[in-house]
Each structure stands twice: as structure tokens, then as C-alpha cells.
């Protein structure tokens, strides 16, 4: 299903996995240039919130990716940065990944 999502929906689905309290003290900005879509996005983390928007103005991102949407999907599926063109500090992506949670598919309902 992920392939059917827009870039914004994909970024939203990352945003709702951010562990807020864990991410409070982190800040970072990552730019994304999708060559296949001809679209640019910026995401930034502040106050535990991952904000993203299209067509950013000039700015100094910690990390910039030039990639395709299939490459983004591969990244989100756990693939690394292999073959993805990037500038800046790859550690910024690591820091983002380290505050993401993956919810358990089976959680208790009938017991507390």
C-alpha cells in the first residue's frame, strides 16, 4: 500500500511514529528532491514534531537527498542510503530514525 501514498502521506506516516518525549531535544532539517516527481520537500524536527512541507525556500538543511520515490519507499522499508545521492550529514537521518517507534501489531485489548 505504501507505493500508493503521496510523499506527504509517507512523511505523515513517519511523523506519527516519532516518540515525542524522546525527540524533544532533537532538531534537524532534511531536504528531499524527487527527480522522478520533480518535487522538493523539507522536513524538520522541533519540539518532538516532524513538520514537512513542499517547495521550501532556500535554507541550510543538515542533510539533502536527491532521489526517486521508489528509493524513498526502499529507505522507509529499512533499506539504507545505498544509491541515494545525498549531501550533508547522514547522521541527521540516523538521529531521526532513532526516535521513531514501530508499534506492535498485537497489543492487549481485554487486559490492561
Amino acid at each position: 500500500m505504501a507505493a500508493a501514498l503521496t510523499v506527504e502521506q509517507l512523511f505523515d506516516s513517519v511523523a506519527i511514529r516519532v516518540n515525542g518525549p524522546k525527540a524533544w531535544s532533537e532538531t534537524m532539517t532534511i531536504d528531499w528532491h524527487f527527480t522522478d516527481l520533480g518535487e522538493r520537500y523539507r522536513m524538520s524536527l522541533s519540539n518532538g514534531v516532524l513538520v514537512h512541507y513542499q517547495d521550501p525556500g532556500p535554507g541550510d538543511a543538515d542533510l539533502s537527498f536527491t532521489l526517486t520515490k521508489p528509493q524513498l519507499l526502499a529507505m522507509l522499508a529499512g533499506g539504507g542510503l545505498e544509491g541515494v545521492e545525498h549531501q550533508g550529514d547522514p547522521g541527521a537521518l540516523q538521529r531521526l530514525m532513532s526516535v521513531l517507534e514501530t508499534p506492535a501489531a498485537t497489543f492487549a485489548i481485554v487486559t490492561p
Partner: protein
Amino acid sequence: MTELRFEDRSDFENADRGFIAKLDPGTVKSRDGRVVWDIDSYAFLSGDCPDTANPSLWRQGQLCARQGLYAVTDGIYQVPGLDLSNMTLVEGEQGVIVIDPLISAETAAAALDLYRAHRGDRPVTAVIYTHSHVDHFGGVQGVVADEVPILAPAGFLEHAVSENVYAGNAMNRRAVYMYGAVLDRGPAGQIGAGLGLTNSTGSIGLIPPTIDITHTGQEETVDGVRISFQLTPGTEAPAEMNLLFTQQRALCMAENATHNLHNLLTLRGAQVRDPRIWSRYLTEAINLFADQADVAFASHHWPTWGRDQIVAFLSLQRDLYGYLHDQTLRLLNAGYTGIEIAEMIQLPPALEGAWHTRGYYGSVSHNVKAIYQRYLGWFDGHPASLWELPPAESARRYVDCIGGVDAVVAKAGNYLDDGDLRFAAQLLKHAVFADPDHKEAKDLLAQTFERLGHGAENGTWRQLLPNGCDRAQERNRGRPGS
């Protein structure tokens, strides 16, 4: 828990900035002599916070008690404190444009008269409704005599009438509780709704818009004034817009960024608003307008001056709604229910410590439950919740288990003595539902509500809780607002 910085007086400085004159006396009457607005009745707020109020809400009440005519910037004026909302006046070539003419014709006319007394008898050349809530259009007949252009966001008329129609009777009834219109004002009573003090009670009207704002980037020139619009449907209202006065470098944020955490679901009942889109439109507003504005104002509370201050204010507001949305989803995906998440969620220090993100009108607690409701609905997934008995039926059985109403009241008294007000209220609800005539149970429940209310930082919680006592139920004057 982050300490609140009472020594930071910048909100008071901004609320006082540009002051020109008060309405004196601070009362507005209808044609038949009935008082429809009386801000002088809030004079007690200038005193120190009593034991019967939350100091943070008391402070907000003091700020909301500012009234009169204020200069925002060259050619732009605001009148706060003559209703729940602010009226804004923008001077054009031939006259003056009115933004959001309050709830009642009487208060709107009083605001316009006050403006004219100091700025000359300018005709109203246009009206702008920023969104489809009654405190932003209801008084239009008090400011418009002739036909003038009326600008509003696309969908305004449909939403202005529909939002309160189908469930209107229930919303009106519940709004009486929420807005506390029948509560006495005073240190132990009503001290403001957080968003403003309260609503006026004059005559409400609606003149349909003549110019629809249909898209972001739309520009209009009205009475020689250039305006650029950002459409923000689905934020604080289903039809809402922000606007930039390009020549004056002044940004009107409608009700999308005010000095409180707003409601995602108002306590009178409504459809749940979308914090994701709200947060996104605030990001867009920053990107579109921050470099073109020296002041940002809204239709409630006081303006923010300076680019950096505007960006900081809007960014924190943006983070607030985004954080509540994202964290509620993270936790519901981890299996927690709304009522659990509301207790678990922690705000980051920057959001906890700022004044304008405090829950004076919305609260973190009821907004989190609203987000759960938006995504997952009323059912918490537990089979025992699927087919519960109705309240009176449950109550009878709980009371039976505990050993009768007197025993429940005695137990509730113990919890009350231990300061566990919330559980005391839950127990006593069962007692009153099992035996609605049990005086002791009702009195103790009323006392519990009052104590909870006095501790509440949220204005509508404070008002809603004491309204739970029978004594307020005979009168019915409230009405839904924002």
C-alpha cells in the same frame, strides 16, 4: 512539570499596546434597555488570584478583560473586550473595512461607534468574515446599513447555518454549561472562557457574503486596500481564511492562532476538527506571510509584533497541534485508548512553558480524546464496552454492589477528603443516577464539581463543572460560539 513564568509580562505589554480609549461605561444595551454586554462586571479580575481560581486562568481572565479601541498599526484598529471576539477595522480610501463584527448587532454597533469617536465618521465600505462561527458575523447588522461587499471564505454560508442546525438543540443546551452564561461572575464564579470573557446576548443576524474567497493566493483590492488570502478549510472552522494586508504589512490569523490551545472538539459537542491540517496550514502561513508581516493579529486576544516574534508564535502554535495529533496517533497505534492517552501524553518543555499554548479553551485532555474519536470512534475496542448498560441502569447496580446510596455517599466523602475529586465525582454520578432525589448525594456532587472547577485551568471546564449543580438548570441563555 514546567514552571509557569508569571514574571514574564510581555502578554500584558502587548495587550495594552496601542490603547486609545475605553468604552465607558463598559455596558451595551439593546433597544429595549436590556444589558447585552457588561464588561464592568469583570472589574474584580484586577485583584489578586483568590483560592477559588487557578492562577493561570485568572491571569488569562485579566488579559481578556482589556477593552476598548487599540491601534494595531497605521490604519488598522482592533476593539477587544466588547464581546467574546475582537472586531478589527481597516481604513481604506473611502471608509473603513470591518473584519468580524462580533456576535450581536448591539456590541458591533458600540465597537464601531467607539472607533468613529476617535477616527472620524467613516462609512463602512466592506465587511470580511474570517470564518463561519457566530462570534465572527452575528453582529453584522450593527455595522452595515447599505449594501457593501462582504468577503468570506468559500463554503461560509453553508457552514455558518449547518454546523449548528441538525444537532442544534443539544448543542444549545450544552453550550449553556460550557459558556457559563448563567453563572455569577466573581472570584468564585465565572472568570472568563479563556478565548474571551463570555458571549454577548443581543440580536444575531447574518448577511450573506457577496465575494467568495476560493483559493490561497487570491488577491482582492477593497476600498483601495490590497488583501492576499490563504484559505484554511478544516482548521478551527470548516470555512476559514487568513489574510495579509500587504501595504500595512499586517497579518490576520482569523482564529487559527490565538493565545490558547484551541478546541479540537468543543465541549458543547461538534464534529471533531483536524489538527493535522490545522498544523499544516500554520506551516503554510509562516512560509507565505512571515517575511511580509510586521504584526500578526487574530479575532481573539492581542497582537504579536515583530517578524521573529510572529514566527516563534506561529511555530509553537503549529507544533502544538501537530504534537497532539502525532503523539495521540503514536499511542493509539500502540494500543492505548483515548482516556488513557489523555493521561499519558506529555508536552515538550517549550509547549508546556509558553503561555499561548496553555489549555484555556481547548485542553490537552479533551483534545486528545477528540483525536482518538476522529480516527477510531466511540468504541475503545474492549468487548465489555460494546454493549454497556445505560447510565441509570449501571448506576443502580453499582450502588447495589456497594451497599446502597448512603454507602456510596460515605465512600465518596472519603475520596473527597483524600483529594481524589475525580473519582468522587464518578462515584457520586452513580449515586445521583440511581437516586436522583437523594439530597446528600446531589449536594456532595455539587461540592465536588465546584472544587474541580476552582482548580481548572480551562475556562470552559471551570464553567461546565459548577453548572452541573441543579441550581443553574432553570435558565437557558447560552449559545454556541467558536
